[in-house]
């Protein structure tokens, strides 16, 4: 169920260059699944006006808390990064359709590939896959070492490899550079990152089951405004899909890349 709730800030910390980890508490956590997102109103004023779609990095249903990891890069996320413990944040969610955890066979292996601020949702996904008895391999791409995060958290969950464009951490290059070397064996892949990464993953594994999480400028976040529409491929009947309400996660081959 989609709810609107003023959630309480449990804590907020800067965990890398311009990257913030924000823990919020409230009832809507109970309905969250990995790969979904929340739509956040960062202030009660008219500026900035619109909500910000932010992914879910960690869910703790017992404590009714969830974690968002986001990059403060515009006015809205900068305002959000100033929220202190005890403050209230207006959250609508959870929204969209997340990663299908059940697509990975129990006892099998899942390859999780993320890029930049697309990495956070893979953390909760990996937790749930591991809880299901699926082995996870994480391949995480970043611009540079100073924007990486959650190394320890991912290491705890499975084999974790870093790739940076400038070579300051892990392999130098793109995730596909590393995957070519690694030749990992897996049953299903999940990817969240920029379009070129999604495209590369779709092309690299034509015979594997795979799920891609997309990003697009959004308005309403619930499918009413038609701002975040993507063209589909000939493989599907629909002419278009909406990232916010049909996605943000789609099986590979659905969205035209």
């Amino acid at each position: 169920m989609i709810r609107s709730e003023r959630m309480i800030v449990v804590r907020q910390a800067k965990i890398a260059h311009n990257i913030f980890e924000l823990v919020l508490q409230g009832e809507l956590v109970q309905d969250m699944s990995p790969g979904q997102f929340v739509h956040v109103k960062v202030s009660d004023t008219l500026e900035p006006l619109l909500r910000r779609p932010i992914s879910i990095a960690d869910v703790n249903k017992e404590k009714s808390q969830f974690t968002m990891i986001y990059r403060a890069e515009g006015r809205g996320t900068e305002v959000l990064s100033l929220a202190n413990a005890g403050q209230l944040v207006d959250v609508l969610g959870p929204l969209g359709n997340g990663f299908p955890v059940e697509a990975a066979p129990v006892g099998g292996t899942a390859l999780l590939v993320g890029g930049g601020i697309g990495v956070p949702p893979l953390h909760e996904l990996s937790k749930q896959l591991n809880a299901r008895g699926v082995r996870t391999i994480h391949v995480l791409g970043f611009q540079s070492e100073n924007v990486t995060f959650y190394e320890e958290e991912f290491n705890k969950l499975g084999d974790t490899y870093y790739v940076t464009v400038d070579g300051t951490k892990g392999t130098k290059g793109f995730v596909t550079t590393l995957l070519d070397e690694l030749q990992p064996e897996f049953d299903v892949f999940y990817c969240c990152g920029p379009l070129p990464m999604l495209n590369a993953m779709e092309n690299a594994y034509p015979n594997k089951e795979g799920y891609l999480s997309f990003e697009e400028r959004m308005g309403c976040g619930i499918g009413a405004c038609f701002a975040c529409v993507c063209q589909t491929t000939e493989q599907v009947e629909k002419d278009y899909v909406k990232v916010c309400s049909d996605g943000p996660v789609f099986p590979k081959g659905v969205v035209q890349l």
Partner: protein
Amino acid sequence: MSRINIELPGLSLKNPIMPASGCFGFGREYAQLYDLSKLGAIMIKATTLETRAGNPTPRVAETAAGMLNAIGLQNPGLEKVMNEELKFLESYDVPIIANVAGTEVSDYVEVARQISTASNVKALELNISCPNVKCGGIQFGTDPATAQELTAAVKAVSSVPVYVKLSPNVTSVVEIAKAVEAGGADGITMINTLVGMRLHEKTGKPVIANGTGGLSGPAVKPVAIRMVYEVYKAVNIPIIGMGGVTNAQDVIDFMSAGASAVAVGTANFVDHFVCPNIIDALPAKLDELGVEHISEIIGRSHR
């Protein structure tokens, strides 16, 4: 006795609040959040004869206290709207105002003729003001003679009252208002969005793929209020006002300027419960103003 019901041509409104066209789809998404029967009416997304795919993305950009959009009238076409979307809305006790768009007069006429026969469509809103499509839309709304002709042609075939949605992108909105009144319009809805542009900080190029987009949100409210105020003085048909409405005070402002009812647009994206919230807040507003029924404030700016 209700203190907030409003009677308009074709429309018995439980309250004067309705989501604006294009900001509410065909209601399905918001139906997950609250009971649509609570609304005064619903202005559904613009419907054209054939399916429209809309514009490339990005289609929206945020601006100071507002947003630009260039969706491009994406809709599934008349047949699907009638068979699927309007059918779905039949399960709610709420009058539908069908926004009608087209490329040529004959499209408008055909959509109007058919959609006005749906049992829950109680009025049409003629879209002669969409700034985001190459043909159809705004060119019908910027020339008084063209606007009058189109209004008359649609009026001749419609089974329900016809409201015409005016564009603010004109030299004199009053002239267009008078023209559509002369063409037989039963009411006016105003304003559509203002044509605007936002540039990318790094590239200097427009952020929206279409280049220009329609500006909406609180930033446009003073323009809308001024236009409603002017048109109210010039015509004898009712006005449904809109432009930057986010709370009950905004509703009071629009009705004071001369609107008989008020539509809420962009605010639906910010506070998804804004329409029911405003409806609930209206009686207290009337108490503050010492007014028994909301209709008493219509046009009070002019008295």
